[in-house]
């Protein structure tokens, strides 16, 4: 399987997935079923995670398509610009959903403001995602445009090419992103290590719920790293898109991201009290999470050595 094949599989997930999650959210609110609302937040978070490989495989596909003589480079760039906006909106929807789940776990009730924010963000995301999907379709399927109608317009206020020039033309941006990426990493890994080591049996006198309140710091670190990493990928896609180390890094990042959802929202982890042992299953998940984050760091560090970056 190559990147275009992967993109063809994944590119429907953000649009259809966010429509399903939004449907669940609306249904939960209308029927006043909190369990349904909570599931919708979990689905938004998972869809936001899957949007990352959908976007990255799209960048790789664009690079392949640009080599073909009968494909409009302008249409590809327009789709990329739309995807960038849609990805950022999906990222913020995922972060807001995660924050809602974190609050819900701690307060044992949902936050009305948070649900409102997720609802607005998800509506924006779905609209933008649907437009982006249409632009993607128009690249190879001009027959889908109605006769006499103009192709879908891309965003005018943000362009991937502008971000590329911004990063490559200013010498201070790359090292600033490097510094922030490393600080984001230790913020994230520090908290993840604490939470998962507790699950493995260390710091037994501390209840899991006491460490749970640290999780937003980990997610802030993750946010810094996704944004800084995205800027590098947009600036120099050729360093990442044919880099085996980068694909392994992204794979482990998805696994580690799922663990973050588990420790945030699931009952099994939350119920581990002071001086209590976590179950074998929880310990296995904690070990897997630490291993996944170590692999994310390892393959990130190996980008120039196993792959072709820098």
């Amino acid at each position, binding site marked *: 399987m190559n990147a275009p094949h992967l993109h063809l599989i994944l590119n429907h997930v953000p649009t259809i997935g966010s429509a399903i999650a939004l449907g669940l959210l609306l249904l939960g609110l209308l029927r006043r079923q909190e369990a349904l609302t909570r599931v919708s937040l979990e689905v938004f978070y998972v869809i936001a995670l899957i949007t990352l490989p959908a976007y990255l495989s799209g960048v790789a596909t664009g690079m392949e398509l640009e080599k073909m003589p009968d494909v409009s480079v302008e249409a590809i760039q327009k789709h990329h610009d739309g995807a960038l906006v849609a990805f950022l909106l999906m990222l913020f929807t995922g972060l807001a959903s995660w924050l809602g789940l974190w*609050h819900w776990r*701690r307060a044992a009730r949902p*936050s009305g403001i948070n649900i409102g924010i997720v609802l607005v963000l998800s509506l924006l995301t779905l609209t933008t995602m649907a437009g982006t999907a249409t632009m993607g379709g128009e690249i190879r399927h001009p027959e889908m445009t109605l006769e006499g109608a103009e192709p879908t317009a891309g965003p005018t206020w943000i362009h991937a090419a502008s971000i590329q020039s911004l990063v490559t033309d200013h*010498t*201070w941006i790359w090292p600033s992103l490097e*510094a922030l990426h490393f600080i984001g990493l230790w913020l994230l890994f520090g908290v993840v290590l604490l939470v998962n080591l507790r699950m493995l049996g260390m710091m037994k006198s501390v209840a899991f719920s006491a460490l749970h*309140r640290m999780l*937003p710091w980990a997610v*802030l670190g993750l946010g*810094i790293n996704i944004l800084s990493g995205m800027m590098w990928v947009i600036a120099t896609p050729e360093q990442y898109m044919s880099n085996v180390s980068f694909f392994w890094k992204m794979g482990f990042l998805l696994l580690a991201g799922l663990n973050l959802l588990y420790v945030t929202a699931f009952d099994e982890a939350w119920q581990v009290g002071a001086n209590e042992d976590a179950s074998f299953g929880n310990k296995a998940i904690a070990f897997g999470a630490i291993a996944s984050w170590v692999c994310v760091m390892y393959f990130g560090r190996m980008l120039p050595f196993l792959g072709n970056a820098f």
Partner: protein
Amino acid sequence: MSLATTVSIVVICVLIVVGVIGFAIDKYADKTDTSA
């Protein structure tokens, strides 16, 4: 301004923003905490 100075200023500014958001969320956790 040297490259090191520019990078330091940018990084410190971003960290201040992240710190403010992080502490605001932590304060918010105090108000709703039922775990104790």
